[in-house]
Each structure stands twice: as structure tokens, then as C-alpha cells.
């Protein structure tokens, strides 16, 4: 670690924090565009001027927008984003029951995907332009361009309806046996993996091929090293930076897909909580969920950048 590297890292982290602040302002403004206000919406038909006025004061809606933003931000940072408008439960509690499931889903997907996509990416770089490479490329290109809902639908038809390996939709009630946990996760993980593997594999292949074009690989070829050795000992170690970058970026794209996949499979995660909140226009809950997703996204993008910086040898001396 040297001074330049430390300065780059610190500035990258500062940028991430500033961006998150900007995002929080944007989210706050976006949810404040609602015609009419929350107090009116809560009481609906039963709104009496007194009741609406009381709630408005309780929710600080009589304050100017920037004060309400600061108040909201302060409560968010101290871990108390208030109550849901729909069922009046504390948002922190709702998120706490859902977030671990979503994190679990994401981690299982990453553990399944990363080794598989690295093997696929490196092997198709080795046998570049072969029938194998073309087949894998066509398959991943198709997977990248198909929405999660189509993959999920076809996966259910194949595994649940034709092969009868799993129930079609996830469920969870009380304690789960190991077998039930597997069934709960199998199809959502499969669907997310299809997209993630395709993305990571394509960037891995490109990164390795890029290294194969360099002059040190040419030297290795001239000295008579076998193709397998050239790829594994010369090209792959140099492609690790771009690959780590690609993995972090792909995982950040996974977040949006997870929202859809959780909804499709009725998976009790943060994504479904968010979609349900949007359907019932539960603004405080939407704000909290969106900020969590955006924070995770910005963290992963920053991680991708940092991986890129650390792997750049020009910054090591």
C-alpha cells in the first residue's frame, strides 16, 4: 500500500458516500411528488379536517421539505425509519425479518455462479472460436437478453411441472426442514444464476482473451509453452482484476433482478416487500427499501472500482 493508492481509495469511498446522499435526496423528492399528501391518503374516505391536521402535524408534514428530509435522514441513519402506513408495523422490524432471506438468496447465488462462470469463461477463451465457444456464447447471449420472468416461467415448467422435482411456488411457514429450505431456494437461485453466469462468463472470456493478445503471452508461445499452461499461468493471473471488477458489477445488476425473482416465486425477501409496498403506495417503507438497495448497489460498484485499482500493478510501487 502506498500513499497514492490510499488517496485513491479514500476518494473513491468519499464519492460513494456523496452519491448515496444524492440518491437519498432523489428518492425523497420522488416519493414526495405524490399528489395530495400522506395524511389525506391514510384517512381516505374518513378524512375529517381535524384528523388530517393532527396526523399532518404528527408526521411533520407542516414543516418545509428540507427540514423533513433532514429529519427523515436522521431517523434512517439511527435505524428507526418509522412505521409502515399500511399495517402500522415498525419498518425496521419488517426489514429485519426480510433482509436475511434476501442476503441468503444472494450469497447462495454467488457461491453457485462464480466458480461455474469462471470455468465457462476461461474454457471458452482457451478454445476461442471453436464450436464449444460459439455454443456457449450463443447460449449466454440469449440468457442475457431474456427477462428473469421468462427464465423463471420456463424453469417452473421444466423442473416443477414436467420433472416434478420442486413445488411450483416457494412458501414458508414456521420451521423449515433442510429439504424444504432446498426447495425454497432451488428455483429462485437457478433463475438468478442463469442471468449472472451469462454476464460474468462473457466478461471473463473477454478479459482472458485480451490478456492472450499481449506480448508476454506471445513470448510464452514462442518459447514453446503448451496452450493450457499459457492460459492458466500467464493470462488468467493478469485477468484477475478485470474479472473481480466484472463479478462485483454483475452482482450489483443481480439486485434488480432479485426484486423480480422474489416476486415471481413468492420468496419472503426484501424485494417482494418493496413490490408490495409500491402496490399499496406505502411511501415510508418504499423509501427505506429503495435506500437499502441503492446503498448495496453503490457499495458493489465501489468494490468493483477498488478491485480494478488494486489489481493495477502501476499503482503498487
Amino acid at each position, binding site marked *: 500500500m502506498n500513499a497514492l493508492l490510499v488517496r485513491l481509495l479514500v476518494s473513491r469511498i468519499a464519492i460513494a458516500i456523496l*452519491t448515496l446522499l*444524492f*440518491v437519498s435526496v*432523489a*428518492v425523497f423528492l*420522488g*416519493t*414526495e*411528488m*405524490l399528489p395530495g399528501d400522506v395524511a389525506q391518503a391514510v384517512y381516505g374516505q374518513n378524512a375529517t379536517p381535524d384528523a388530517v391536521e393532527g396526523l399532518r402535524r404528527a408526521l411533520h408534514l407542516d414543516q418545509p421539505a428540507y427540514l423533513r428530509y433532514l429529519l427523515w435522514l436522521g431517523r434512517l441513519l439511527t435505524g428507526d425509519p418509522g412505521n409502515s402506513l399500511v399495517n402500522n408495523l415498525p419498518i425496521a422490524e419488517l426489514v429485519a425479518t426480510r433482509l436475511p432471506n434476501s442476503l441468503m438468496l444472494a450469497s447462495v447465488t454467488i457461491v453457485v455462479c462464480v466458480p461455474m462462470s469462471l470455468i465457462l469463461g476461461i474454457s471458452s477463451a482457451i478454445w476461442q472460436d471453436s464450436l464449444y465457444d460459439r455454443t456457449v456464447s450463443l447460449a449466454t*447471449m*440469449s440468457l*442475457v*437478453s*431474456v*427477462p*428473469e*420472468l*421468462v427464465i423463471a*416461467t*420456463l424453469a*417452473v*415448467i421444466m423442473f*416443477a*411441472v*414436467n420433472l416434478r422435482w420442486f413445488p*411450483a411456488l416457494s412458501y414458508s411457514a414456521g420451521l423449515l426442514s433442510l429439504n424444504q429450505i432446498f426447495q425454497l431456494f432451488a428455483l429462485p437461485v437457478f433463475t438468478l444464476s442463469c442471468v449472472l453466469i451469462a454476464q460474468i462468463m462473457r466478461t471473463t472470456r473477454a478479459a482472458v482473451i485480451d490478456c492472450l493478445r499481449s506480448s508476454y503471452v506471445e513470448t510464452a508461445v514462442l518459447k514453446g509453452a503448451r496452450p493450457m499452461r499459457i492460459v492458466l499461468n500467464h493470462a488468467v493471473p493478469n485477468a484477475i482484476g478485470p474479472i473481480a471488477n466484472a463479478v462485483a458489477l454483475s452482482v*450489483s*445488476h443481480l*439486485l*434488480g433482478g432479485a*426484486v*423480480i425473482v422474489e*416476486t*415471481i416465486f413468492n420468496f419472503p425477501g426484501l424485494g417482494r416487500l*418493496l*413490490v408490495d*409496498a*409500491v*402496490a399499496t*403506495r406505502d*411511501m415510508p417503507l*418504499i423509501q427505506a427499501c*429503495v435506500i437499502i*438497495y*441503492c446503498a448495496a*448497489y*453503490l457499495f458493489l*460498484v465501489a468494490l468493483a472500482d477498488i478491485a480494478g485499482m488494486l489489481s493495477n500493478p502501476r499503482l503498487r510501487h
Partner: protein
Amino acid sequence: MSVDHNNTAIEAPAQPRRRLPLSLGGMVGATIVAFWVVVAIIGPYIAPHDAGALLDDDLFGHMRWKFPLGSDYLGRDVLSRILVGARYSIGVATVATFLAVLMGGSLGMLAAVSRGPVDMTLSRLFDALISIPSKMSALVLIAALGSSIPVLIATVAGIFTPGVFRIWRGLAINVNALDFVEVARARGESTAYLIREEILPNISGPVLTDFGLRFMFAVLLLSSLSFVGLGVQPPDADWGSLVRENIDGLADGAPAVIMPAIAIATLTVGVNLLVDNLPRRWSSTVEH
């Protein structure tokens, strides 16, 4: 008086085309895309049944002569509903992408040509906006404004504008640095003239490629939104809504749920095949 125009005028008769301009994959993609565009335009007129009429006593009916793609959860004709839905799936995505290109593209070229503080301000603003994941912006805006076709178009257009701006600005800056633009500027031509006559004709290829990819992402985003019930609202239905409303037929493998899913997949794979096989000089680097 674009340089481009003169070139084609001279080259066209001298060089008869011996090869197809597209590879096999590109031709397949172009055919699929053309097919769906035609369906989107004439779909409602060739639909065999009224898309809203309850016709079949059998719910989730199988494929047969009267209902070539089966019937849905209310006994409506699936083929007719897909033909009518094409207009929503393709129409909304096309209009939204077009608006995004109009806004992002003109601001991008303006930023590239003006340079200085205009470029700085616009670039910073769009860089910040691009850091919000597209599905999150869509959910927030739909929660705030409710879901309707105009809101969906505006939302998707707004979400894609920063990305379009980035690509167009990058391409325009490269052209802007070339001598003939400097000459035009020295002649005292206006900014509008520079954009229209010097920049635009020279970035049209990559910009078309970018349009294709954005259109595909728009279709993906819109069908996902409709699928979770936040996109096109009943009684109207795009292909994502069709998959959603027939999801109960999934356990029986009903064609009512498989066919709209296949329609989405063929359209997006077709666009990607076409864009992937466009001439290399047209390529633009796009991140989603």
C-alpha cells in the same frame, strides 16, 4: 451537405453489393424484429377473436383449431391477446426509447459542442442520476405517480436518458475534435448547424446500435414491471401482464402462460442478435 451523402452517391453505382450486409445471425434477428414490428402495427386487425371476449368454456384450454394458442384463465383467446398486446409491449418501449434518445441525444451533442460549463453541469448531473439502479427509479416513480401508459413511457424515457446522454456525448466529442468541425466553427456556424450538419451524420451508425440495445432493455424493464403488476394495467395487457394473469396455469403447463413468455423471449433475443451482428464500425460500447 454532409460528407456522408457525397460518399454514398459516388460509391453506390461503382460497387455492387456481392455480400449480404448482415451475417446469418443478423438476418435471423432482423427477420424476427421485422415480424414483431409488423404484428404490433396490424395485430389488432388480424386477431381472430375479440381480445376481451370470454369465448371458451374450458379455462386454460389447450391448443386447437379454434384457439391456436389455447385460451386463458377467463377463457379468452390467447393468440388474439398476444396480437393485441404486441402493440403495448413494443409500442410503449419504442416511444419511451425514442424520447430518451431525443432528450439524451440532443443534450449529449449540445454538451460536446458547447464544452466548458454547460458540458460540466450536464455531465455531473447525469453521472449522478446514472448511479440509481433502473428498477429502483421505476418503482419509486410508479409509486409516486400511479401506473398508466403515459407514466410508464415518461418513467422509462427518464431512466434511459442519462445513459443515452453518455454515449452520444462520447461519440460527439470524438467527432467534434476533427478538423472539419473546427473549420465549420471558424467559419462562424451556429451550434445548431454544427450539431445538425457536422456531428449527427458522422455518429449515426453507433447511435442506431445504441438505440437497438436500449429498446431491448426497455422491453425487459416494462415486461418485468407488468409482470409484478406495476406496469400496463387491466383491461389493457402487454405480454408481461399476460404471463402474470395466467400464472395459475403454470402448474398445468398451460399455453396461456408459456406463449406470451416465448413472445417476449423471441423479441429480445431477436433484437440482440440483430444488434450483435451489425457492422463493427457501428458498434457502440454500452453498459446497462
